[in-house]
């Protein structure tokens, strides 16, 4: 299963590269920057693993690549215009991703900050609220962009509200999965598997070395 997910992630990255190349070759440059940026983002987990030894769960890794892939390929192939609801699908992908990253963040904070203790049922509540709040921030960002730079990121009231509705749904789904995940894998084990400790050591080492060299 894990190997298959890894292979799929690589395949999707390859397709993203193909989109960038095809865009350049055919002179259809609109989606080339997006493809390149998506590719760079999709490598961030690998870079984190190499330099800081932080290892995100493979499922989360896959989800990141999938969200970027759907956005770029959908944009390049015109799915945003031709397939109804495509923008809501990608929106839901990205908001669930944000929810999942919020979840990882909170579990880490819970473990490493002594004055904070966040029991399990609270985590589910947190994820729903966090995803929703980020969704609202996202819409506000689009609105600000539209008002200041006169772009057209928001199509109208219905579109915005359906986006928010999907944010809520994504939040609930991630909350259910997140809590399920922690039932299978204990929170301590989960944080250990992220190798945050090693990352911390590395950063401390690095800072120490800089201080010594000054």
């Amino acid at each position, binding site marked *: 299963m894990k190997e298959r997910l890894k292979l799929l992630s690589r395949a999707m990255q390859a397709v993203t590269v193909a989109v960038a190349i095809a865009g350049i070759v055919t002179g259809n440059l609109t989606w080339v920057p997006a493809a390149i940026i998506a590719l760079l983002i999709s490598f961030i987990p690998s870079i984190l693993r190499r330099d800081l030894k932080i290892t995100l769960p493979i499922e989360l890794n896959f989800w990141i690549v999938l969200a970027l892939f759907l956005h770029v390929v959908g944009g390049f192939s015109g799915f945003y215009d031709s397939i109804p609801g495509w923008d809501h699908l990608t929106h839901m992908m990205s908001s669930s991703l944000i929810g999942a990253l919020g979840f990882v963040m909170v579990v880490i904070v819970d473990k490493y900050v002594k004055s904070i203790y966040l029991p399990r049922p609270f985590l589910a509540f947190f994820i729903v609220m966090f995803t929703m709040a980020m969704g609202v921030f996202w819409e506000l960002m689009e609105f600000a962009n539209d008002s200041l730079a006169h772009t057209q990121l928001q199509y109208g009231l219905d579109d915005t509200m359906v986006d928010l*509705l999907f944010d809520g749904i994504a939040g609930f789904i991630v909350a259910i999965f997140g809590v399920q995940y922690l039932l299978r894998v204990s929170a301590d084990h989960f944080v250990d598997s992220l190798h945050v400790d090693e990352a911390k050591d590395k950063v401390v080492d690095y800072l120490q070395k800089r201080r010594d060299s000054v």
Partner: protein
Amino acid sequence: MRTPEQMIEAELSWISSMVLFFATVYTVLKLDVLWAAFGIAAISLYVLPIISMRNPFRALPWEMTLLLAAPMLLHISSGSGAMLDHFESWHIADLALAFSLATIGFLLTVELRMYTDVRMNRPFGMFFVVMFTVGISGLWQVGEYIGDIVNDTNNLVSNRHVMMSFVWVLIGGALMGFVYDLYLKAMSEKRKRILGFIHLPEVPK
């Protein structure tokens, strides 16, 4: 087990909850659906901890209850002629909504501290107030949107209108975050113990 101080706190809380109760009854009788929904949500947030603790003496502090009622009173009085004459340009409806949602965000954070095992330090508490406020406002607007479709009303007016109300909510939430900070600073240790803000390892810096 119950000290006289606890009794007084609880009684004050019950008395002030009456304000919230009657404000809600008023909006229900006026068929003011949105505000009735808010009132019922606020009353549930008042009653639920009492039920789940099975202890009527562990009610919310009285000032929290009055704070919950305040945006409703603001809304109710915004219909009155005197208010409209003096503050028409203040967008009282927007302010009341932002205020009410920020109050709920504040309340949720306080309740987490009073009734659950959740422990948090101050900056995190402030972050929670803002996040809960914005998150709740998102859910609220989606609820209104669905209500608009089902009842064929037009409460949300336009995309711009909704976005501006989010901006107000964001400002309200940020202010409420500071209020939370001040509130906990202002409350004496003794009163915190009486009210059940028990776990207080706020790291002394």
